[in-house]
Structures are given as C-alpha cells and as structure tokens.
C-alpha cells in the first residue's frame, strides 16, 4: 500500500455536462488550513478553469456552496479538508436530490419552489397604521419560532433526506421547518393556511423521522423537530375538523 502524499491531496470531482457524468482526478497542494471550497477554487484557478461551482460569502452565511463530500452533504466553505480526508483522498460531487446543471452546480429551483408550496411566508395581521404588536421574546411559541430562524437555505438537509430521494414531491425538511417557524410567529395571521399546505400528500406526514436532516444541518438546527410539531398541529386540526389532512 502506498503512503499518502503529505504534500498533495488526491481530489476526485464528479463532473457533469450535456454529454453525461464522469469522475475527474486532480492533484491539489495540501495546506495546513484548507477548506473544501479552497480545494475546489484552487482547481478552478490553477488546473481547470472550466470547473463550475457556486460560492459567495465563504464564511457559512449565504448557503450557496453546499456539495457532497465523501458522500455526505456539507457546506464546502466551512468543511476543513483534514476532517474529511480519507488518507489523502477526497471525493466531491454535486448535491444529492437536485438536478445537476453542470459539475458542482445544481438547480435549486425545486428546493425554493417548495418553500413557497409549504406556505412558509408571512400572513399579515395588521396594517402599517396599527401599533406594532408586542411579542414576548421568552415565550414558548417564540422559542419554537427562534429555533429554526437561522436556516441559511443551503439545502444540505434536502440532500441528506432519503424521503426526498424516494418521493420527489415531498416538501423536504427546510421548507417544512420554515412553515413551522412562521406558524409559531405571533404576528402571523393565517395558521390554517400553513397547516393545509403542509398536510397534503407531499407534506409533513411523509417524514419517517430518520433524522438525517438534523444530523447533517451545518447550523445545528433541528428540522425533524419542526416537522413533528407540524404533524402534531395537523392532527389537532384534523380532530377539530378544520383540516383537509
């Protein structure tokens, strides 16, 4: 068995274009501190300028650089190479469960369309002429809303979810977590619209509680907990006879 080369990383990237997919191999200089995004950027700048990938903020805020690293969905900008290296090897591929446009760039439309379908948008209660309503920041309902508010829409949970893989219509963890956040917002008026949106055949009751969303969320959020909250509320609404669940 050959020893890993300490000076170089053996990087394999799953590349795709209109002719199909194939693995491409690159030798990338190893650094003491190096993220997966650094590796991909080095390849694009020094080895193959045709490599396509997405990034923007480089600090884990924008949610645009997620990709599969050694088979696991991760945010590339805050994934240190040393933590994921397999010997001196690393395999990088586009996010799972989304259509590939080219190389590491996936079409995020299905992901964001589902945010709309899950009705995770504000339903106003008042006009600009009304006084600003008082919200207790320590209240239990606000705590539920706060729990999911730091989602950066990176789609790591969506890529990790086996239920999405099996049922492409399923709204997925991020959209459902957003719906639960708005549901618990004291300023949101139409809770029933959210329950109706998430209780259909593609809604929260598809979730098998595998927990991969929560396991892989790079911001340590808990979408599965949000989904169980929606399950409880849709069942309560069904018992009250108010839902089409």
């Amino acid at each position, binding site marked *: 068995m050959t020893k890993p080369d300490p000076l170089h990383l053996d990087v394999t990237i799953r590349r795709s274009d209109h002719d199909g997919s194939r693995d491409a191999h690159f030798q990338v200089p190893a650094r003491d501190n190096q993220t997966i995004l650094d590796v991909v950027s080095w390849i694009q700048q020094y080895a193959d300028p045709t490599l396509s990938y997405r990034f923007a903020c480089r600090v884990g805020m924008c949610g645009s650089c997620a990709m599969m690293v050694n088979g696991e969905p991760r945010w590339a900008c805050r994934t240190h190479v040393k933590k994921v290296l397999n010997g001196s090897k690393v395999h990088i591929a586009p996010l799972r469960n989304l259509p590939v446009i080219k190389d590491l760039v996936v079409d995020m439309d299905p992901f964001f369309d589902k945010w709309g379908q899950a009705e995770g948008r504000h339903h106003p209660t008042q006009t600009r002429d009304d006084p600003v309503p008082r919200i207790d920041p320590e209240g239990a309902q606000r705590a539920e809303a706060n729990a999911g508010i730091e989602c950066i829409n990176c789609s790591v949970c969506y890529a990790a979810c086996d239920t999405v893989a099996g049922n492409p219509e399923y709204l997925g963890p991020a959209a459902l977590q957003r719906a639960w956040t708005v549901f618990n917002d004291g300023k949101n008026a139409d809770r029933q619209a959210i329950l109706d949106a998430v209780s259909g055949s593609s809604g929260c009751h598809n979730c098998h509680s*595998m927990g991969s969303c929560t396991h892989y969320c790079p911001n340590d959020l808990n979408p599965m907990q949000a989904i169980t909250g929606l399950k409880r509320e849709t069942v309560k609404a069904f018992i009250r006879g108010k839902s089409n669940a």
Partner: protein
Amino acid sequence: MMRPSKSHPLWFAFVVHRLSGITLALFLPAHFWIMSLALTNADQLDRFLTFADNPLVKIVEFCLVFLLSIHIFGGLRLLAMEFLPWSNAQKSLAAAAVGLSLFISGTFFLQAI
C-alpha cells in the same frame, strides 16, 4: 447518485423498525395458521410442538420475540416523538427502545432454554 452515510442512530432505528415490521408481517400468518391447528388438526400441532423443542427453533423464536418487542418499542418511540413535545433526548429514547427489547427477548430466551 451518491448516497450519504447512514451512520447515525435515528436512521438505524428507522431501518430496524421497517425490517422488523416486514418480518413480522411475513411471520404472523404462519403463527396464526399453527395456532389454528389446535382446533383443526391436533396431531399435526403436536408434531410441530415436538419439532419446536429443537434448540435451533428456540433461537428463531427468540429472534421473532426480539423483532416483536423492538417493533413495539420503536413504535412507542415514534408516537412519543411525534405527539409529545420532545427534545434532543430522542436518541436516548431510541437506545432505550433497543435496550428494553433486548432485555425482554433475552428473558424469553433464557426461559425457553
């Protein structure tokens, strides 16, 4: 398409719950058929019970009781998780479900041999 790693406890709990459910669905018709022999064919039932004294059959019975208990407690875990406000202690619940299942099926096994 690459599949993400499945090395976390809740995914394992999901798989065990599904597999135990499928196996029980296959086993239960045979179980009920054998029980019906008490009414329809006592001689055949006696022959089966003699065969069931075989230690290998006891081990298979242990597996079935284990599957039954793991399916029950896995289901209770899901109900608790989805219908009660729960916390990150869910992983502990999953572990407790497996532990309790092992205890109950182990007790059955020790009595059987």
